[in-house]
C-alpha cells in the first residue's frame, strides 16, 4: 500500500495528528522582548566592566614594562656583583665566618 493511500496507517495517523489542537500560549513570555532587544543592541550589563577591565590590564602591562625599563640599570648592577654583596650582609656568613 502506498503512503499516499488514505487507508495507509501513516495517512490516518497524520490526519489524526492534524486534528490535535495546540492550546499553548503563543504570546512572548514576560521580559523576553526586553531581554532580546537589549542583547540585540549590545547593551549588556557587563559590557562596561569588561571594557574597563581590558583597559586596566593594558595599563598594568605598560606600567610593568616602564618600571622594568627605568630600573634596568639597578637590576644590571645587582646581577654583576650580586653574590659578593649578598654574602657581606648575610648573617649566617657573619656568624660562621669564612
Amino acid at each position, binding site marked *: 500500500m502506498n503512503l499516499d493511500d488514505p487507508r495507509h496507517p501513516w495517512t490516518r495517523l497524520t490526519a*489524526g*495528528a492534524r486534528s490535535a489542537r495546540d492550546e499553548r500560549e503563543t504570546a512572548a513570555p514576560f521580559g523576553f522582548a526586553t531581554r532580546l532587544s537589549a542583547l540585540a543592541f549590545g547593551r549588556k550589563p557587563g559590557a562596561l566592566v569588561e571594557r574597563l577591565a581590558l583597559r586596566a590590564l593594558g595599563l598594568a602591562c605598560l606600567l610593568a614594562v616602564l618600571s622594568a625599563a627605568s630600573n634596568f640599570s639597578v637590576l644590571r648592577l645587582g646581577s654583576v656583583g650580586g653574590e659578593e654583596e649578598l654574602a657581606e650582609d648575610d648573617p649566617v656568613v657573619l656568624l660562621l665566618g669564612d
Partner: protein
Amino acid sequence: MPDDEVPPFDLAGCLDGVRRRDQAAARALVDHLYPLVIRIVRSHLPRRVPEEDLAQEVFMKMFTRLGQYQGAVPFPHWVSRIAVTTCIDHLRAQKRRPEFRWADLSENEAEVLDAVMTNENDVPANDAIAAHEIVHKLLAQLNAEDQMVIRMLDLEQKTIAEIAALTGWNQSLIKMRAFRARRKLQKLFKEIQRKERT
C-alpha cells in the same frame, strides 16, 4: 471606530525604528512576531532544545541580518524562513536518531499505533494527541531535511511552492526529498509490522 478596536501594527514604522536602534521598536517587533516564530519552532522543535532558546536564536539572527532585508518578500515570510532554517540547523546537529521501539511508546500511543496497523478505521478525535506523538517519533527517524519536508507536506499541508519559499530549496529537490522520505517511512512501517507489539 470603536474604542476597543486594536489599530493595525505598523510594521514599516517599527522596522525603521529598529534600524535606528530604537529599543522600544525592537521590543514591539519581537512581541508582534513571537506567535509566528514560536509556532514554527514548536512544530519543528528538535529533542532537548528549549523552545524559548530556539526562538531567541531566531530573533537574534533577525536583528543581525536586518540590513540584508530588501523587502522582496513580506517581512513575516523572511522571518519564517530564518526560523525554518534555524530549526533545520538544530535538527542536523542532532546526528543520533533514536531507534523507534514499541517499548518507548506510552500505553495509549501503542494502542493507537496498533489500531491503525491492524484496521482501516480513522484515528478517533480523543486519540489525536497520541497520533501526534507517534507521528513525531516516526519523523525523528528521518534526517533533518526529510523530516522538514514531510512535516510541512503531511502535517501542515503546505504546497511544494510554499515549502520552497520557506526553505529556499528548489521544487525538484523538495519532491526528491519527499519521495526519499516516504520510501524510508514505508520501510519503517514494514519494520514496525514485523516487530509487532509485544
